[in-house]
């Protein structure tokens, strides 16, 4: 009995030991936990906070990018809000169902959608800048975990119109090419960084969101380009390039008295709305300013102008054109039209190379060189476009006799169309220097003018008499000479054709020619100067007179006829205001008033071009930019 009690007591004290052991273990654990909690909260609390910062994102608010407008205020480039669709993969359970529905609605490959759905993230873009239709569908589906954010996209309402001049922006609305690139700082809206707190699902939890002031919108750039002229020019160049099966063509229309560039086009076209689809970067180039070529006979106009200015030729000067063959050293200069004695007008009319080579010999090389320099050859015009070329004009000390002869008829030097247009403008406008320009003014978002082109009286380059003589001589080229295809009924035209040879590795190409026509109208009081260039027309008789002159004729003719029509349409109406109106309403008003409208976007009209109250131009299209209302 005693031993049993003793054993029981021993056992009991053994068990008490065990209970204490476990109890102390538990309390030890609690102490360890307390220490760890202490260190997490008060000592090593910096590393995790870094991960917490991710959740208060600095969020960039960007002012709307400014517009690019033509001379009449018509919008050529604008930023329009489009729905960008995003989702939270962590919130979505039935990924297969979502993949099916989203790929169908947004017409995306199903695997691609599924891949995004399976990401272990809280925020994934599924389709940026989707169409408004797609945005509406997503909205009506009301899928949990799928959201829409309105993002701005650059829109070019007229597609390829002046595409190479305008350039394009990237997805983030940063200018990449053309004016968009050059004037990016002006066009871009100001940035504002605010710190937004987002919850774990990416939802913004800042409660005074509406109190945040929007950053300032970008400035609007107003161009000298006239859309109508641009449209006609592009159409005619395209037609000629297709007809002649040429490589490309480009042209420019400029006001010779002010330097305003009315149109500047290149074909093949570049549509900045689809910039990412162009693999061939040369299609993005604004060829009239970018491409240099040996101009050929068009240069004879400047040669003759120089000779008249220097007084080395006059009306009575007779030049022996040696029946189409002249030996200079070991070289022979040929003429297409084999003539004997010609006066100056004859040299231009028949475009005699031999005549030109003899005229340059009458002027000193230095004088002709500085004359060309004064006209702007060999240097940039400083038009504000990226990638402008300056061409090649060799120093006169290095000109040999044959080189001088070549330069006299426009070979052995290179120019841009823009330089030709500038030089011809000086010849045409009475002899004063002009600076070609594209930017009429820049206005900020409040409508204040922050830049305006000021016209300074230009330096005199040639005398008024010489200019008047040149107008007549070049008029004769169109009336009686090689430029006859540029004739326009009822309008006097002056101009000169040119067929430039293209330098290849072993001399000049026998196949490829760059043919041009430079001209102005009306001859007596020039209002428009145009330079048309067709690169590499195929087949026989690849002459400027055959391919480029008709483009000039049709373009200028249509422009002038159109102007006339507008004048007849004087009972001009005012452009009504569509601002704030819904799409359906817009269509109704347009029908009632018989107006052409172009609707871009969905929802309510936010912007319109031309602005309300402006005079409605005949057959003009009114561009309306819609954005979803709130």
């Amino acid at each position, binding site marked *: 009995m005693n031993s049993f009690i003793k054993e029981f007591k021993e056992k009991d004290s053994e068990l008490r030991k065990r209970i204490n052991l*476990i109890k102390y273990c538990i309390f030890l654990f609690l102490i360890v936990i307390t220490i*760890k909690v202490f260190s997490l*909260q008060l000592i090593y609390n910096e590393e995790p906070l870094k991960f*917490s910062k991710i959740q208060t994102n600095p969020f960039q608010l960007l002012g709307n990018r400014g517009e690019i407008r033509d001379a009449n205020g018509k919008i050529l480039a604008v930023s329009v809000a489009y729905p960008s669709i995003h989702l939270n993969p962590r919130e979505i359970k039935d990924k297969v169902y979502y993949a099916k529905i989203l790929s169908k609605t947004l017409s995306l490959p199903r695997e691609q959608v599924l891949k995004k759905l399976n990401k272990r993230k809280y925020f994934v873009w599924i389709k940026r800048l989707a169409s408004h239709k797609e945005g509406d569908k997503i909205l009506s589906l009301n899928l949990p975990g799928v959201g829409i954010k309105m993002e701005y996209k650059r829109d070019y309402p007229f597609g390829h119109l002046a595409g190479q001049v305008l350039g394009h922006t990237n997805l983030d609305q940063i200018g990449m090419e053309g004016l968009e690139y050059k004037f990016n700082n002006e066009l871009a809206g100001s940035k504002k960084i605010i710190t937004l*707190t987002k*919850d774990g699902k990416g939802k913004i939890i800042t409660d005074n969101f509406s109190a945040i002031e929007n950053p300032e919108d970008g400035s609007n750039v107003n161009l000298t380009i006239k859309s109508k002229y641009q449209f006609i020019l592009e159409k005619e160049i395209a037609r000629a390039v297709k007809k002649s099966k040429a490589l490309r063509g480009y042209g420019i229309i400029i006001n010779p008295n002010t330097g305003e560039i009315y149109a500047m086009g290149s074909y093949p076209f570049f549509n900045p709305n689809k910039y990412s689809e162009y693999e061939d970067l040369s299609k993005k180039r604004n060829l009239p300013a970018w491409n240099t070529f040996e101009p050929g006979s068009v240069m004879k106009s400047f040669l003759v102008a120089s000779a008249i200015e220097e007084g080395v030729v006059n009306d009575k000067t007779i030049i022996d054109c040696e029946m189409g063959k002249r030996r200079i050293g070991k070289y022979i200069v040929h003429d297409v039209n084999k003539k004997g004695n010609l006066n100056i007008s004859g040299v231009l009319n028949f475009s005699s190379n031999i005549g030109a080579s003899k005229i340059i010999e009458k002027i000193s090389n230095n004088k002709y060189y500085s004359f060309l320099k004064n006209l702007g050859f060999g240097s940039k015009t400083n038009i504000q476009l990226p990638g402008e070329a300056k061409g090649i004009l060799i120093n006169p000390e290095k000109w040999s006799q044959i080189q001088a002869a070549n330069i006299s008829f426009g070979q052995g030097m290179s120019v841009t169309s823009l330089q030709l247009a500038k030089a011809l403008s000086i010849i045409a406008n009475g002899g004063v220097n002009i600076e070609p320009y594209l930017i009429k003014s820049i206005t900020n978002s409040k409508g204040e003018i922050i830049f305006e082109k000021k016209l300074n009286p230009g330096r005199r380059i040639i005398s008024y008499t010489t200019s008047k003589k040149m107008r007549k001589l070049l008029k004769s080229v169109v009336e009686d000479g090689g430029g006859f295809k540029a004739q326009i009924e009822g309008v006097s035209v002056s101009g000169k054709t040119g067929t430039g040879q293209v330098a290849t590795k072993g001399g000049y190409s026998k196949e490829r020619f760059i043919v041009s026509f430079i001209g102005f109208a009306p001859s007596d009081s020039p209002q428009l100067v145009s330079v048309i260039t067709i690169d590499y027309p195929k087949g026989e008789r690849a002459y400027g007179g055959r391919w480029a002159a008709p483009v000039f004729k049709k373009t200028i003719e249509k422009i002038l006829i159109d102007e006339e029509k507008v004048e007849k349409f004087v009972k001009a109406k005012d452009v009504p205001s569509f601002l704030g109106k819904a799409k359906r309403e817009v269509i109704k008003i347009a029908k009632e008033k018989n107006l052409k409208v172009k609707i871009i976007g969905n929802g309510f009209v936010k912007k319109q071009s031309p602005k309300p109250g402006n005079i409605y131009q005949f057959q003009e299209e009114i561009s309306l930019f819609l954005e979803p209302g709130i």
Partner: protein
Amino acid sequence: MLKSYLNSIEPRIIFIISTITLSIIGLLMVFSSSSIVAMENHADSFFYLKRQGLFLLLGLVIMGACSSINTNILAKNYKFFYIIGIVLLILVLVPILGRKSGGATRWIQVFSFSLQPIEIAKYMLLIFIAQHLNIKNTRIKEFKIGVVSTFLPCIPYILLLLMQPDFGNTVLICVTIFAMIILSGAKLSHIFGIFLVLLSSFLSLIYIAPYRMKRVMSFLDPYEDPQGTGYQIIQSFVSFAKGKFFGVGLGNSSQKLFFLPQGYNDFIFSIIAEELGFIGSLLIIILFGLLIFSGFKMLERAKDLFSRNLISGIIILTSLQIIINISVTIGLMPTKGVPLPLISYGGSSLIFTLFAFGLVLALDKRKN
């Protein structure tokens, strides 16, 4: 001095006061940490608060009722309780009843109420083991009778749990039973043997299922994959770090804004740490300490073996849950899915924890 002061207070009072204090703090924190999720999911920010409040009331009533029952009923019907536990765990695996959530089926859905059977079953098993050890007490030193026969009835539970799968509760139950065997006087050599068997079997389980491996690795270095496996732990650390000494204030946690999944459930301690600071964390730990302390006091004064066994089972189980849950939130253990007793949202856990505490009070009253 503190200890002698505490010793002078009736342990039942400490036990009851700390239980009620903790569950009220729990209710408050459930509301604070769930209101936004509730608004988002149920369009009612009081959704979880209302339910948890109801559960607490029900739980306290059950606790009161249980504290005055005749515990002989438990001992007599110990096999019946064992079977109830088994049936509940089987029901989870019945396809129409079981509710899948996060890759595991741990819930039974009946209308709008869902039940987590393991929260009940574990106490059923404890009742069974307590009486089993009581019966086998005289031969506890024999390996087969004392140790093996105690572990054998646990195997169906373990297997059913692993089928869910619920690794956390498996560990919890095994360790608790193990501790109960230690306390009922088994030989040290046997205990050590079992320890090795348990350890090796858990290691092999981890080895077999690579996702467990990944989880285990992630808690060791959560920063390796902050967006993936380490995400929860890091977000929990962020909570602790933000809380500092005094906390960001009740209701001001930013981590509960969906950064910390289950902020009202498994990670509620992190939200407490963030909103109430180290002061709050310490208060919770101290209250739990008092709860455990008073529990052990009642264990030490238990008059009979059954009471001693069951009280030790319940107290150790509760202590382990507290340790595991908090350890997970502070990155000392891999993520488990074990709720914090009395605090975490969840009816099954709260009601049956209070039920078990009621039993503790009843057993403490039991006269031999």
